[in-house]
């Protein structure tokens, strides 16, 4: 009974409380947080069971309202969808635990709408993963986008402007996707993904089909912040409240990447496609630009969250590279990097949140070595996150890059291999800039030579409270554990995902 309903259960665990929170919250504002946390916590076992069930027994499908598949809307939980649903549940649960104090400090009067929006956002994300219908995907995309605009706008003084820009560009993105879906629908007469995938080989030579695909990919590319469609991202992520960016940065763009995977590899057949339009190659080459541009821009930033946002542009480039290679190992690398980047970006944004709450800012220029004494654990998490971003073994980041490099060599894409490795070195530059500042006293301060071996003195402890520290450290520890267990993940979980078209 539960098994048959699995695909819809996770989105519903988010959607229903999302609607309940404003109702209950009007009278009891304090109830908003427990409700939201309960919903997210409840989604983890469901999503976990879903993944277990799908890996053990194949995809689970659910048709809405009893209408059979091509006519009715179908929800399908396959390995890829169930895996990313679990990822969304786990990361959002940790972020929400962290968020309680952050929200009560940064915008205490907006607790009720905030948590409601968070759940709407997650419901949108999980809906996108679970749906098997192209138009239904658009609806969930809009649900998550609208919630996302709201979550960005709650932030600091500039945030409505960033949110407005995000809204305009997001609407262009979703509009393009909708238009592309229309093209596909006109030609195939169906909106069900599996059905469309069956029909497409017969009509793949029709120009409208390819035009539709390009429109869809452009639209989703905008939502994913695929270079050069990334320009909304740095503003949106850096002016959003800390807990929002900790949700949006690790998960938001990954959901976009998921849609790209779904369309390019499951609805369309990448092999057949490549002979007609070199769309995967284009994505890969744009990603090359993204990796380099994002890393260089990150190097130039003076604010931690902004730096992390640009670094996201670069990391999405890695995912795009893995997809664009269109080799099985590249695909594995891309999916693994979706997981790893979600975790490390979440960890780093939580560190930024800790800094904001404890110090009131996250300016790199204002950090100094006292920080490593004041907030030792947060800074340790920063180091682990940074090592993983750089891709040093045995952290998780090494292994996704390892598969990406293998995928590049498998497809003889030497330039991509070089860019992946060079990107790692650029990561080193911008993260060590921060780490040196935090750990080493002999930093050239504004007045030339500041605090040479400054006396130890009494350094007050300004470490974040336990509810904020615990999720940060759990994520950081996960980066170490996941690195060494990545092979298990790849064999048991990611291998079943590799689309037939790639093998």
């Amino acid at each position: 009974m539960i098994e048959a309903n699995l695909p819809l259960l996770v989105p519903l665990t988010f959607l229903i409380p999302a609607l309940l929170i404003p109702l209950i919250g009007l009278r009891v504002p304090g109830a908003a947080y427990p409700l939201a946390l309960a919903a997210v916590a409840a989604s983890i076992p469901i999503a976990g069971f879903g993944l277990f069930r799908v890996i053990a027994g194949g995809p689970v499908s659910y048709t809405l309202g009893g209408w059979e598949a091509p006519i009715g809307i179908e929800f399908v939980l396959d390995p890829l969808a169930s895996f990313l649903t679990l990822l969304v549940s786990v990361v959002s649960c940790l972020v929400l635990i962290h968020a309680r104090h952050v929200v009560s400090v940064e915008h205490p009067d907006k607790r009720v709408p905030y948590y409601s929006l968070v759940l709407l956002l997650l419901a949108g994300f999980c809906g996108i993963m679970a749906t098997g219908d192209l138009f239904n995907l658009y609806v969930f995309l809009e649900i998550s986008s609208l919630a996302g605009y709201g979550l960005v706008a709650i932030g600091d003084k500039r945030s409505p402007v960033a949110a407005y820009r995000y809204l305009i560009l997001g609407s262009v993105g979703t509009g393009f996707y909708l238009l592309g879906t229309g093209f596909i629908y006109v030609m195939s007469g169906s909106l069900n993904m599996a059905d469309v995938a069956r029909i497409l080989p017969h009509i793949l030579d029709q120009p409208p089909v390819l035009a539709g695909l390009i429109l869809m990919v452009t639209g989703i590319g905008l939502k994913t912040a695929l270079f050069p469609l990334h320009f909304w991202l740095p503003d949106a992520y850096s002016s959003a409240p800390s807990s929002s960016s900790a949700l949006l940065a690790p998960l938001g763009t990954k959901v976009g990447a998921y849609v790209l995977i779904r369309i390019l590899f499951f609805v369309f057949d990448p092999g057949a496609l490549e002979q007609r339009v070199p769309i995967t190659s284009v994505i890969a080459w744009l990603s090359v630009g993204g990796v380099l541009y994002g890393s260089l821009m990150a190097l130039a930033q003076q604010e931690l969250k902004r730096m992390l946002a640009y670094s996201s542009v670069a990391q999405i480039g890695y995912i795009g590279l893995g997809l664009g290679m269109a080799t099985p190992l590249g695909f594995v690398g891309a999916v693994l990097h979706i997981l790893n980047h979600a975790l490390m970006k979440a960890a780093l944004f939580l560190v930024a949140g800790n800094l904001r709450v404890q110090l009131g800012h996250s300016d790199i220029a204002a950090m100094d070595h006292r920080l490593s004494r004041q907030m030792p654990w947060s800074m340790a998490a920063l180091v682990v996150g940074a090592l993983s971003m750089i891709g040093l073994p045995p952290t998780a980041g090494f292994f996704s890059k390892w598969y990406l490099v293998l995928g590049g060599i498998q497809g003889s894409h030497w330039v991509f291999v070089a860019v992946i490795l060079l990107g790692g070195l650029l990561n080193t530059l911008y993260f060590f800039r921060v780490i040196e500042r935090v750990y080493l006293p002999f930093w050239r301060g504004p007045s030339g030579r500041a605090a040479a071996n400054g006396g130890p003195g009494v350094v007050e402890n300004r470490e974040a409270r336990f509810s904020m520290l615990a999720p940060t450290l759990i994520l950081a520890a996960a980066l170490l554990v996941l690195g060494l267990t990545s092979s298990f993940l790849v064999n048991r979980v990611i291998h079943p995902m590799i689309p037939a078209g790639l093998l």
Partner: protein
Amino acid sequence: MNDLSTYPSAVPLLAILVSAASVPLIGISARRPNLREFWTLLAAGAKFALVLSLLPSVLANQVAETRLFQVSPGIDLTLRADPFGVFFALIASGLWILTSFYSIGYVRGLKEKHQTRYFASFALCLSATLGVAFAANLLTFIIFFEILTIATYPLVIHKQTPEAIAAGRKYLAFTLTAGVVLVAAMAAVLQLTGTLDFQPGGLRAFRDLSPVAVKILFGMFLAGVGVKAAIMPLHAWLPAAMAAPTPVSALLHAVAVVKSGVFGVVRVTDFLFGPETLSRFGLNEVMLWLAGSTILLASCLAFAEDNLKRRLAYSTVGHLSYVVLGAGLLSPSGLIGGLMHIANHATMKIVLFFCAGAIYVNAHKEKISELDGIGRAMPWTMGAFALASLGLAGVPPVSGFVSKWYLGLGALEGGSVAVVTVLLVSGLLNAGYFVPIVYRAFFKQSENFNSIGEASAWMVVPLILAAGLSLLLGLMPDLFFHFFSLAKQIAAQVLEVSNP
């Protein structure tokens, strides 16, 4: 006779973990220095004992293996205590004990800050070094190699002076870039050959690859491990890293890090590419040229340095290339000589660094030109210094002679007169830059050192022990640790000859 048989055992893993396990213990006893140092010494002793326990079985061609879990499809994280691994692990863990005692004397003598971080990083480095030694395949090797890079960084910047920070940056720039090249090369090898396992004599699959591919790969590997081995022109980080405290320079820059580099060179050339592939594609010539020019150039550069530690650093650069030279000769004696030089150079160079540190702690002198007459104030220290520097120049009966002798034999076996010349000239150069120091110390007069005496026993005893060891190893190379038997065994397996 030469075939190894493996048996499952947790000892290699334990040997690695024992020092990593001491890190949290060191961390929590930060406020009780005596307890903290106890943990370091305990870990060092236990580590050495564990490695030593592997020795008898290795000599009987029984190899302990810990197969952990898969890290990439088809590749397990595997530790294998083969003769070469045990050989290196013995040196590293044995000298760690001496260095630990010495470190305690040194950091307390100077009242260094951040002592806890220092001892913790040190312990982590040793774990990584043993991981490098026991790695059974390239992926395992690179994982520990990179851990070693990161664990050493806090030690390089330990003093936290602008100079140290700049050195740290240089260190990271070189080593991380090398790591990236190594990963790329490893991925290519996996795609081309389907395996990453180290095998004595190398992978056969290489022999069938196109010459261009093999040459490019070899170049990448040599650059990747060559940075830590300080092959010129990739050596620049090493003199800069002398900004670290002296015990760090001693163990890491004479034993663990740089020796991991040359260990890597030998692993890659003899266990991955294999002598046959090397000679088929003429790659060993490249190694000989690089090593030969590094030896001569570094020795010349050493003359120009007035800073004692930097002179030692250039001397290290030169001596590391002896090992590369030995690997490049592809003859049994040459390889034995190269391997013996890993052990011999380690013991002798550690003595020299210990001396430099003792001088710095006692007299606060770093420059050679200021050392006039210090031999009278610190006779034991400078005596050991004299012994070790003679050894490095290749004077019998100190152990440096043994390795040079075998290197020379190997060169003659290969009929390479140029290599013999390099060895002879570099011996003279070595003497040229070391003897003046000894001369100044003992025969020049100065009033500077009337008020000081010998350094504390914590420092002098390890120093004398190491010097004594290098003398003993010169007289009886097979004493205690069977370095010579091990080297012979390795050469036999790698070069597939029955009795080198």
